[in-house]
């Protein structure tokens, strides 16, 4: 229960302080938002000064950054990637598309609402959000982690049935074995 505010022990406070300042981001560049990530990471906005750094594989990553619309096909991959990540892990929904479908709200093949399928900790609105907004989003996530209430992964585990039901409703050919921790 390390992410429950009322029961935060001293160890958890230290751990959360470390986690907060060391966010390794797996940027799942699905849509047009992928182009904003380099801008955020490089010289102009330099996310690394906040401890935000790119990670190469889900095993090493803390934050799953979903940058844009998700088709049914990519949603499946995103879920797979999310479940391969190790605890503690956070999800940032990036751009309008992840919030309510954005300009693809009536597409036959993109989901409209990411938080039905994955536990989103922070949404960054905008189409596209500028790097300032992205940094603001990371700041918000850091704040939540520091308070110990960024407990999306916890929610996901507890309400796994709910998420699985939603996921399977959209993904017809559900072919990977049910993953547990």
């Amino acid at each position: 229960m390390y992410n429950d505010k009322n029961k935060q022990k001293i160890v958890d406070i230290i751990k959360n302080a470390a986690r907060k300042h060391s966010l390794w981001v797996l940027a799942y560049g699905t849509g047009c938002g992928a182009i904003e990530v380099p801008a955020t990471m490089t010289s102009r906005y330099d996310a690394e000064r906040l401890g935000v750094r790119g990670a190469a594989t889900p095993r090493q990553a803390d934050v799953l950054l979903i940058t844009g619309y998700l088709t049914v096909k990519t949603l499946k991959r995103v879920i797979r990637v999310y479940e391969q990540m190790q605890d503690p892990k956070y999800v940032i929904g990036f751009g309008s598309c992840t919030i309510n479908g954005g300009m693809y709200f009536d597409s036959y093949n993109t989901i409209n609402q990411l938080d039905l399928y994955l536990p989103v900790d922070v949404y960054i609105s905008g189409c596209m959000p500028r790097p300032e907004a992205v940094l603001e989003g990371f700041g918000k996530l850091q704040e939540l982690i520091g308070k110990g209430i960024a407990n999306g992964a916890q929610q996901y585990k507890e309400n796994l049935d709910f998420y699985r039901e939603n996921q399977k409703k959209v993904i017809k050919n559900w072919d990977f074995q049910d993953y547990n921790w």
Partner: protein
Amino acid sequence: MESLLMNILGAVTTFLLAFAVGMTYGGLRRKIVARVQNRYGPPFYQNFIDAFKLYSKSTAIHHGAMHFLGPAFIMVSSVVSLMFIPVLTNNQWFPNLNFQGDLIFLIYIMVFGPLGMALGAGQTGNPNSAIGVTRGLSQMVGFEIPWVMALIALMVQYKTTSITGLLDIQVQSGHWFMFENPFAFSAAILASLGMFRYSPFDIVGAPTELASGPMSENGGKFLFVMMSSGSVFAFVKLTLIVDLFMGGASNLIILVIKTFLLYMIPVTYGIVSPRYRTEQSITYFWGWPLFFGLIAIIYAVFF
């Protein structure tokens, strides 16, 4: 009994020192790279935060026994080689096992790490890991040759293969081997560029191409052990070169200054260099560095 206890205490202290120095240097490198790229950059203690965070991450899955033992092999390589290197010239503080092994032994124990990492990476079954490992081992064959030639030149010139022996000669005569045999120093420095695996030679764990190569399936504690082993190993390499070529260090401050100056060579070389392909880096090491090694041996034998 008491001496044993002191030995163990000394070994642990050496390890902690190496860990701290290596981690700080890594952090400073990130800062320097950031400044060169016109960024603000992370604080110099960022690596400590990263390491602690990695340690506190959970390890929910594994791919079998070698997946666990691979990082342990790497740690064996760095810690044992640390134990055999004199940290300071007056050996009262960190005696460890300095007199028990010599340079040839050290060369061999230092290549144990990559092999252990290769085994750990192999068991995960990730094809990227295996590709990275093959690149890493190939590159290792590349830079080991000039490195060994430089060391042979030293050994031949001063008729000893012991690290403490070479260090004592420098301390007593007051001449650094860096100036006594500059060719050996150049060869060793150029080879050490490859050992650090910084920019031109970082194809082993190219993050975007190979998904960080051998590390791609390791998160959490595995990565923590690899990271700390890398830091300790960086300290080992720097201290070894300081001991062999720059007359060692009589106290920690001098050690830190010398190692930091030395560390700046691969860092600054790396910042401004693009990435070499594997065969390019092998041919790089078999070009000028090998030539310098050859000259160094000739110089050692005839002058």
